[in-house]
C-alpha cells in the first residue's frame, strides 16, 4: 500500500508519464554511437527532430519507470565552435529543454576533451559523464580516478568500454539517478559557459590530480601497420586493392542475393498476385503487376546491396582505415575542392550510387558533402554496366566492345572531375581538414551488423514512398491511354517522346529509344526490359533489333547519355532526403541532364562530321 502510494507520488513528482529527453554529446572518435547503441538496444532510428530540419538518431528506452528519449547529437570539439555540427548542437541545445546531458569522452584523450565537459556542466543541465574506451586506456597505461574526477566536475563519472559492453549498466544507473533527482527539464544556458582559456585552465588543474598519463607511449601495432599501409609505394596500391575487395564483396555476396530477391518477387507476382487480380480488367491487372508490385520490387532489390555495402563500410570505418584512406587520397582531391573521403565514396559508387550517397554522412561539412553528392552519380554503377555490356556486345564488334566500355569508364571519371571543378567554388568548404587517425581496431560482428541494419532500414524508411510513386508515374505514362499498346507511340510517353524529338534528334536518339530513357530514369535495371517492350522484341531477338536500329555511333551516343543523365530514381530520392533541399535536388538532376546532352551531342556530331 505504502509502496503504491510512494510510486504514485514518485510518478506525479516526475511529471507522470512525461517522456524525459536526454542528449548524448561528445567529440568525434569517442565511440559515441557505439555507446548510444549499447544503452538503447536496437531501437535507434534516424529521424527528423520536431522543429529542426535535420536528421538526429533517436531512441526510446525505459529507465526505471520513466520513458526516456535519447538523442545522439553529432560529434563536436567545442560548444562555441564554428563548424556545421557545432552550430547544429548549439541550435539543438537552444531549442530543446533537456532532462540531462550525457557527456562522453575518450579516456585516452581526456586531457583534451575535458574542457567540453566543463562547458556542458556550465550550461546548468544535469550532467552524467561517460569515460569511454577504458579498455584502450588501460592498455596504454592511462589511469583515471573516476571518484576524484566526479568530485572535481560535480557530476557522476562512469568508466565504460562501449565496444565490449563494460560499464553500461552503471552508466544507465547513473543516468536514472540523475533523472530521478531532477524533476523538471532545463534549458541550456549558453551565456554561462566560461571562456576557452578558463575551461582549459580548470581542465588542466583537474587532470593534474585525477588523471595519470604515461610519459612516453609505447609504439604498438598501429605504428607497425601504418609503416606499411601508409608508405608511399605500397599504400596507394593497397588502398585500391582494398577498394577492389569491397567491390568484389558487394558483387559476390549482394548480387546473388539480389537475384534471389528478384526471383522471389517474380514468383510472388506470377503465383500469388496474378491469380488474385485475374478477374479484374486488364488495366487494373497491369497497374497492380507492372506498377505496384514492380515498384515494391525496385525498392526490395536494393536491400541486399545496402546491407552488404554498409557492412563493408562499417568494417572500413571502424577499423580506422577510412581516415587513413582519406589521408592517402587527399592530395589529389584537395585540388578538386573535395577531400579524401569523397574519393572513397566515389569509388564505392561504382558498385551502387545510392549507398555511396548515404555514405557521404561521414563528411561533416555541408558544402563538402553536397559537392560530393553532386559528383557520385557519375560513377558507372553495376546497373549501368549491365546496359552497356548488352549494348556493346549487340552493336559493336568483339574487338571494339571492351574499348568502348573502357572509354565509358574514363568518361565517368571525366564527368565527375569536370563537375567538381565547375562547382567547387559554389560548394566551397571552409572547414579545415584536420582529424584524428584513430588506432587500428578490430571491428566486432555486432557493430558491423547493427550498422548494416541501421543504414538499410533508414533507406527503406525514407525512400520507399518516393520510389513507388515514381514507378507508378512512369507506369501511367507508358500505359495511358488504355487503348494504346504499352509504351507505344500512342501513349503519353510516346507523345512526350515525339514532342522531344527535336532535342534527341541531334544526338542520334530516335523517339522510340528515347522512351527507354524514361525507363532508365526509374532504374537502369529495367532499361533492357523496357527496350524489349518498345521495339517489340522478345529477350532473344532484342540484340538483333537494337543492332538493326542503331549504328555504332548512335549506340555510343545513347550509352554516353545513359551514363551521365541520371543514375536512377532511388539516387534522386536519396539526394533529396540527404540534402533536404529541393533546389539542390533540382540542380543534381538538371546538371547531369545538360552535361549528358552536351557530351552526346559533341560525340555524335563530331563522329558524323568525320563521316563515321
Amino acid at each position, binding site marked *: 500500500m505504502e509502496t503504491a502510494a510512494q510510486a504514485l507520488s514518485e510518478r506525479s513528482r516526475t511529471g507522470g508519464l512525461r517522456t524525459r529527453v536526454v542528449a548524448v554529446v561528445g*567529440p568525434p572518435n569517442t565511440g559515441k554511437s557505439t555507446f548510444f547503441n549499447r544503452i538503447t538496444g536496437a531501437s535507434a532510428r534516424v529521424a527528423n527532430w520536431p522543429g529542426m530540419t535535420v536528421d538526429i538518431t533517436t531512441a526510446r528506452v525505459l529507465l526505471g519507470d520513466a520513458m526516456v528519449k535519447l538523442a545522439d547529437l553529432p560529434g563536436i*570539439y*567545442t560548444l562555441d*565552435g*564554428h*563548424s556545421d555540427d557545432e552550430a547544429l548542437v548549439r541550435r539543438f541545445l537552444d531549442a530543446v529543454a533537456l532532462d540531462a546531458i550525457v557527456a562522453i569522452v575518450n579516456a*585516452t*584523450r581526456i*586531457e*583534451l576533451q575535458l574542457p567540453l565537459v566543463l562547458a556542458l556542466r556550465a550550461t546548468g543541465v544535469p550532467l552524467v559523464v561517460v569515460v569511454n574506451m577504458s579498455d584502450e586506456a588501460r592498455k*596504454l597505461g*592511462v589511469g583515471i580516478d573516476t571518484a576524484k574526477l566526479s568530485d572535481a566536475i560535480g557530476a557522476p563519472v562512469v568508466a565504460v568500454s562501449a565496444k565490449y559492453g563494460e560499464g553500461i549498466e552503471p552508466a544507465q544507473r547513473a543516468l536514472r539517478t540523475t533523472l530521478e533527482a531532477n524533476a523538471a527539464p532545463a534549458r541550456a544556458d549558453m551565456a554561462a559557459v566560461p571562456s*576557452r582559456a578558463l575551461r*582549459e585552465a580548470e581542465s588542466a588543474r583537474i587532470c593534474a590530480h585525477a588523471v595519470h*598519463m604515461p610519459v*612516453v*607511449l*609505447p*609504439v*604498438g601495432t*598501429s*605504428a607497425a601497420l*601504418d609503416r606499411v599501409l*601508409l*608508405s*608511399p609505394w605500397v599504400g*596507394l596500391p593497397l588502398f585500391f586493392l582494398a577498394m577492389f575487395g569491397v567491390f568484389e564483396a558487394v558483387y559476390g555476396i549482394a548480387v546473388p542475393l539480389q537475384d534471389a530477391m528478384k526471383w522471389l518477387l517474380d514468383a510472388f507476382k506470377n503465383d500469388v498476385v496474378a491469380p488474385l487480380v485475374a478477374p479484374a480488367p486488364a488495366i487494373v491487372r497491369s497497374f497492380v503487376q507492372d506498377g505496384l508490385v514492380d515498384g515494391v520490387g525496385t525498392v526490395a532489390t536494393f536491400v541486399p546491396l545496402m546491407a552488404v555495402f554498409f557492412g563493408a563500410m562499417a568494417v572500413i570505418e571502424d577499423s580506422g582505415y577510412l*581516415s587513413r584512406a*582519406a*589521408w*592517402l587520397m*587527399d*592530395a*589529389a582531391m*584537395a585540388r578538386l575542392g573535395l577531400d579524401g573521403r569523397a574519393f572513397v565514396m566515389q569509388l564505392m559508387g561504382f558498385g551502387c550510387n545510392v549507398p555511396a550517397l548515404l555514405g557521404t554522412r561521414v563528411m561533416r561539412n555541408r558544402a563538402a558533402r553536397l559537392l560530393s553528392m553532386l559528383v557520385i552519380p557519375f560513377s558507372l554503377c553495376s546497373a549501368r554496366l549491365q546496359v552497356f555490356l548488352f549494348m556493346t556486345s549487340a552493336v559493336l564488334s568483339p574487338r571494339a566492345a571492351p574499348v568502348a566500355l573502357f572509354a565509358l569508364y574514363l568518361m565517368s571519371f571525366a564527368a565527375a572531375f569536370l563537375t567538381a571543378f565547375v562547382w567547387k567554388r559554389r560548394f566551397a568548404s*571552409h*572547414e*579545415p*581538414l*584536420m*582529424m*584524428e*587517425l*584513430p*588506432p587500428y581496431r578490430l571491428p566486432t560482428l555486432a557493430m558491423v551488423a547493427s550498422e548494416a541494419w541501421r543504414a538499410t532500414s533508414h533507406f527503406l524508411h525514407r525512400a520507399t514512398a518516393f520510389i513507388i510513386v515514381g514507378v507508378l508515374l512512369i507506369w501511367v505514362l507508358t500505359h495511358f491511354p488504355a487503348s494504346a499498346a504499352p509504351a507505344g507511340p500512342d501513349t503519353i510517353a510516346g507523345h512526350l517522346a515525339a514532342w522531344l524529338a527535336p532535342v534527341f534528334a541531334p544526338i542520334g536518339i530516335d523517339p522510340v529509344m528515347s522512351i527507354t530513357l524514361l525507363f532508365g530514369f526509374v532504374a537502369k535495371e529495367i532499361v533492357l526490359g523496357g527496350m524489349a517492350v518498345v521495339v517489340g522484341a522478345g529477350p532473344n531477338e532484342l540484340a538483333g533489333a537494337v543492332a538493326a536500329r542503331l549504328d555504332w555511333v548512335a549506340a555510343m551516343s545513347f550509352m554516353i547519355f545513359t551514363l551521365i543523365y541520371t543514375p536512377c530514381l532511388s539516387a534522386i530520392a536519396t539526394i533529396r532526403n540527404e540534402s533536404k533541399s529541393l533546389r539542390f535536388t533540382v540542380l543534381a538532376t538538371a546538371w547531369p541532364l545538360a552535361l549528358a546532352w552536351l557530351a552526346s551531342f559533341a560525340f555524335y556530331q563530331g563522329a558524323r562530321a568525320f563521316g563515321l
Partner: protein
Amino acid sequence: MNLTLDRLLPEHSAAITSVTATGMASERMAALGLIPGRQVTLLRRAPFGGPLHLRIGPTELMIRRTDARAILLDHVHRWKPRHKP
C-alpha cells in the same frame, strides 16, 4: 629558430611555440592538442603534397600542409620510437 610545421622533417619532434591560425582552424587545433608548449612528432607526409601525419601525446592526426604553416616550432630533434617489449 623558427620553423613552421610544414617544414619539419619526418621522424623529427619539436615543441610548439605558437599557433597563428584563426577561426575554425584554431579551434580545431586546440581541440586536437596542437597547443603551444606541446611536443609534436611528424611521422610521415602523404605523397604528392598531401597531408601530414602527426603524433601529439597519444593522439595521431592528419593536417593539410597549408594549415600546418600556421604552427611555429622550436627545439627540433630526431624522434626515437620506443617499441613495445
